[in-house]
């Protein structure tokens, strides 16, 4: 094939890649070196934004650690519940198809709308949850207590995204070879031993993939926080992406928000690489 023809076929894809990935990243880097806000243009201020971020903005780092806590907790819960549900409908049970569809419904709904509904459920004076709990003398402050508000965010996130984990793990379970299970059955392994020594190790590569995908998604958590708590009470549910949103699109400190976004991107790339390596070492040691 003519060498030039190869480029003709490559260019459309390359242009799209440059347009939707490379250009925005380069623009964000340029923006992060500017003081672009409501009163300044795209001027060049060097590393001023980064210096401010690393030396004078504890709120960003607090929101980052809060995000780490929320994403790790939600993903672990999603994995455990998702695995349990997938394992349940993997077996031949009654209404298997019905359950498979039922467990997927939360994922098919629009997150923002579902969060509005959850907010209504958890409304402390008008919501049905406290209405029921008040019969037992309890009226938890779901959205106004700093600790409970975090738990509420976790509940909504777990409800919304467990089906995704369920779907990946069910696909994994269905693709497992039958021979190891037959061998285990012949050896008389109990269901628990079969799970620990056969199912779980065989599912390890899929589990790692599913956990990493969900961690990437969970680390961008924004809509749930925005609708449910607006980062409050105080800053107790403020995550990195919500904080960047406030600085960039509420306060219009675009340059500074860009520096936070870029820093956040680098941190996420590094930390997720280490997490993936760690998980591989832990789960695929044999």
């Amino acid at each position, binding site marked *: 094939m003519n060498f030039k023809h190869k480029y003709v076929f490559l260019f459309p894809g390359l242009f799209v890649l440059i347009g939707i990935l490379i250009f925005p990243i380069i623009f964000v880097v340029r923006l992060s070196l500017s003081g672009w806000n*409501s009163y300044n243009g795209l001027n060049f201020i060097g590393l001023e934004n980064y210096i401010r971020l690393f030396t*004078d903005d504890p709120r960003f780092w607090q929101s980052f650690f809060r995000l780490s806590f929320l994403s790790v907790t939600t993903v672990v819960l999603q994995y455990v519940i998702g695995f349990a549900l997938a394992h349940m409908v993997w077996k031949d049970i009654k209404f298997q198809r019905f359950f498979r569809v039922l467990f997927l419904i939360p994922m098919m709904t629009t997150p923002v709308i579902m969060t509005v509904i959850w907010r209504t459920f958890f*409304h402390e004076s008008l919501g049905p949850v406290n209405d029921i709990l008040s019969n037992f003398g309890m009226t938890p402050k779901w959205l106004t207590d700093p600790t409970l508000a975090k738990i509420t965010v976790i509940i909504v996130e777990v409800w919304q995204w467990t089906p995704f984990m369920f779907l990946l793990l069910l696909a994994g379970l269905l693709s497992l070879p039958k021979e190891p299970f037959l061998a285990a059955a012949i050896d008389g392994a109990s269901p628990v031993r079969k799970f620990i020594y056969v199912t779980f190790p065989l599912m390890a590569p899929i589990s790692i993939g599913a956990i990493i995908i969900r961690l990437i998604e969970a680390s961008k958590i924004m809509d749930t926080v925005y609708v449910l708590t*607006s*980062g*409050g*009470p*105080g800053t*107790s549910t403020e995550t990195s992406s919500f904080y960047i949103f406030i600085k960039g699109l509420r306060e*219009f400190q675009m340059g500074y928000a860009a520096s936070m976004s870029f820093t956040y991107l680098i941190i996420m790339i590094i930390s997720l690489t280490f997490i993936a390596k760690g998980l591989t070492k832990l789960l695929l040691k044999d």
Partner: protein
Amino acid sequence: MKITKTCLSAIISGVLIFSPMAYADKWSDQFPHIKATGDIPGDCSYEEISKKNYKGKTLKINTHAVPVIGQPTALHAEQFAKLTGAKVDVTHTPAGDLYAKAMVPFKAGQAPYDIVFGFSNFINDWRQYLAPVPKKYMNSTEMKDVTKSHVGVSSWDGTMYQYPVDGDRHYLKYRKDVIDNPEMQKKYKADTGKTLRVPTTWKEYGEMAKYFNGWDWDGDGEKEYGSAEVMKKDDLMFAAFFSRSVAYAKNPRTPGGFFFDLETMKPNINNPGFVEALGDWVEATKYVPPGGINFGLGDEIGSFGGGQTLFSFSWDDAFIAAMQDDSPIKNKVGAAPLPGADKVWNRVSGKWENQYNQAPYIVWGWAVGVAKKSKVQEMAFDYLCFFSNGANHQADLAIGNFGVNPFKNSDFDPQLYINTMGWDADIANSYTKTLNDMEKSKNRVFPLRVRGVFEFTSAVATGTSKALAGQLSPQEALDEVAKEWEAIVNRVGKKNVQEDYAVGVKMEDNKL
């Protein structure tokens, strides 16, 4: 002959008297929204706007989410389209995003919206991208009725950039059926030893709110609470905090700045006056309804307007909602000035002055402008003029969650509320007197209108919400806000902020 003459005169008089009504009915038949008044003659009345032909043209509007201001925008857009043949596209945006939604295209040199709604304190950031209101509209009959202070609010350096559609101020709303009830007064006296009356200080407000918190004091079978307030972070809570601060921190004897010391540009936000107010506010978390510290403006309107609380303070909307025909507490509410304080901080001497102080907080309100780069500016201004014409304005005033509040001289006439909205005379009188007194006060506080205003107010929201959530003490929270304000002043440039702030200080010091 005499009888014939008399009959003829009676018929002619009748025709002259009732002709405006007949004329009005023609439009109110088609547009039931104005059924109470019919069309009201003016340069932008239904009659006049119907003469315009904008067929084939599109007007794009970015406004607030439904219902507050978003609903009247959409309603008047529909009416305007019907009258002129124009196509009107309305985009609804949450309050917190209105600023950026206009600023991003403004900064990029684009005008995706011909009309942008926002808060009036955005004026300094937006004015360079907005078209000044043309003379034709400045001289319109509708504009001539706008109060002097609201013409000032919408203008910068004598040029009007924001078209007046709303006028706001914070004042106290209370349950008249409780506060004026002799039985309740007796019970309150017996239980507390104090007099139940319209609170004149924030401490008194707190005591009463605490007493009336968590029990069924109106006998409807539901628990009622002390106070409904905007406490949700980023949902205009900064304005609620300033309302509580003015009594302690706006000293008429120390001109030269409420938010900053104009000379040094040192923030006043963490002085003992503001700290005292934040301390009161933290205390208020104990007498708001469950979930009250997550209440936004909509929740506050619904809570007080629905009869859930004894007190509320902020914009007119909650009061109007309470006075609507479908409200369970119609004609059971009263309006009064914001509570004051028995002491006021003197930032010059650095000491408390132990004397009564009260200061109205003119929050202003919704503002709207036409993009300088809009290709349909005339149509855009016609729409805004139509939005606030006499008939639409009076009808909008009567709907609590529309967010349209008095800003015209004719709005301060109690008869308007008695005749068209069915208010009791004493309530209408107390309402208009409260608003009127605020207009006349010489100790008013106006909102901050400086470059990068959102950075300042966002810092206040973050700091005060941390105090309300118990993450920081009031002093620590406001020290954090002051530090942030100093950093913002340095970023924006001390001289720039000082120059902008001087305009507001002049208004507060009654020099404009």
